[in-house]
């Protein structure tokens, strides 16, 4: 049995050039083919003990060149490429998280579902019951997967979405009075108590006689900007981001329909695009540009709902405070 390796030596015996090639291999020493062949043929027990080694060697020889041992540089490179390919495809095909994730994730999912259900009539017009989030971080890396935390979120890989560096919050331009803004836009701008009377007010007309009201405040040489859309935030809005937004609860008291208000906090500059739904249920207004830290939320005002986007407040808790300061029912 100690001759275990001998048979390996003899393995070439059947090949046409076997005899010539046998010796240099030197694995089993200098044995003649005769005894070897016999030894191999005699007991299958032995054959069975060498064959496995040969088969293992065969298996290893299938590994791509350069992969070497498990820790080899070639190997880690290859697997790193595979990681990127796999994660990239998971993103590209918008594969959802394999299972209901953490409780927090499920809770969020439930919130979105409830929210969707409650606003279904409008949303049907807007088609889409899914949040669309375009994510894109080349190289596709770990944090990207965190996106899947959003139940029902579509994630698309788009390496082209890179915010321009050093973008600043755009100012509001020439100012109107709040009253003028209301007359022009057809709705009464919401002014958070926490910010007080805006320094500038602007109304931008969007296609189809829709309007966007922007309020601006100057703070320490920087601009705080609040965009208001007299529309609901479409759950099918898209946000092209390099990292996921954070879901924040706004105030404890759920509004009348039992859905707790929430806000989306985007901590870093990003390319922004989202859809809104007007009173007729038409989806409209999609916008894209680099924005600073942003809080996006909706607020019920009178008959309708207003979607607000706050930019230029870098501190999350302050942003939330500002959003909450709208909770006071009277805005005049």
């Amino acid at each position, binding site marked *: 049995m100690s001759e275990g390796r001998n048979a390996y030596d003899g393995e070439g*015996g059947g090949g046409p050039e076997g005899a010539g*090639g046998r010796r*240099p291999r030197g694995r089993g020493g200098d044995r003649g083919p005769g005894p070897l062949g016999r030894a191999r*043929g005699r007991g299958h027990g032995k054959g069975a003990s060498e064959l496995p080694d040969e*088969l293992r060697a*065969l*298996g290893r020889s*299938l590994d791509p060149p350069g992969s070497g041992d498990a820790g080899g540089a070639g190997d880690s490179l290859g697997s790193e490429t595979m990681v990127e390919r796999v994660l990239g495809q998971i993103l590209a095909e918008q594969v959802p998280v*394999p*299972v209901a994730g953490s409780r927090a994730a499920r809770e969020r999912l439930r919130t979105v579902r409830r929210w969707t259900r409650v606003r279904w009539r409008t949303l049907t017009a807007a088609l889409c019951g899914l949040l669309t989030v375009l994510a894109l971080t080349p190289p596709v890396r770990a944090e990207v997967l965190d996106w899947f935390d959003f139940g029902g979120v579509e994630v698309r890989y788009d390496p082209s979405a890179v915010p321009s560096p050093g973008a600043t919050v755009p100012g509001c331009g020439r100012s109107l009075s709040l009253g003028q803004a209301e007359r022009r836009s057809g709705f009464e701008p919401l002014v958070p108590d926490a910010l007080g009377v805006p320094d500038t007010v602007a109304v931008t007309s969007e296609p189809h006689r829709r309007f966007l009201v922007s309020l601006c405040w100057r703070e320490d040489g920087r601009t705080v900007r609040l965009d208001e859309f007299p529309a609901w935030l479409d759950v099918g809005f898209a946000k092209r981001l390099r990292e996921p937004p954070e879901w924040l609860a706004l105030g404890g008291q759920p509004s009348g329909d039992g859905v707790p208000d929430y806000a989306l906090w985007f901590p870093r500059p990003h390319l922004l695009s989202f859809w809104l739904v007007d009173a007729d249920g038409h989806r409209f207004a999609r916008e894209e540009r680099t924005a600073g830290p942003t809080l996006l939320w909706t607020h019920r005002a009178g008959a309708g709902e207003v979607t607000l986007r706050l930019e230029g407040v870098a501190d999350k808790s302050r942003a939330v405070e500002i959003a909450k300061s709208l909770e006071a029912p009277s805005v005049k």
Partner: protein
Amino acid sequence: MIARVRAGEAEAYAELVRAHTGIALRAAAALGAGADAEDVVQQAFVKAYCALGRFKDGAAFKPWLLSIVANETRNTVRTAARQRTLAGREAAFVEAEPLIPESTDPAVATLETERRAALLSALEKLSEEHRLVVTYRYLLEMDESETAQALGWPRGTVKSRLNRALRKLGRLLPDFEPREGGDERE
């Protein structure tokens, strides 16, 4: 680890992929994916991700993954309607052959190549079950219980089929001499 992936932790799945790319590629190659091995493996990882919800807690990931790789390989080969002929498959193996470290002698290299071809051709002649069990157990270097998990067979079945397959393989190999093979039958 699986739990971390399910919790949506990104790096966890990246780690799984990283740790299993090598063996998965080998499996795809061994099962006949040829030049498609990388695509097959990529697809298998994505499918594994989707199917992670069905992964049994406490089970081993590797055999589970490799059974997906095997499936994917089958599908690919079938879809492309190019089930490789023995010759084509051998050619692929020979191409993929890395340097044999302990031998720079071309004669030796030739011998290695021949021996590989002989092994492969013998493997090819085995029944599907036997080929699979040998592949999982030895070419992919899994232990018996992992092999059993990957193939979905009881362990005893793995053991007996493996024995039979090895014996057949021994008989199929060219250096086997029939006059001495009296005790090689099952």
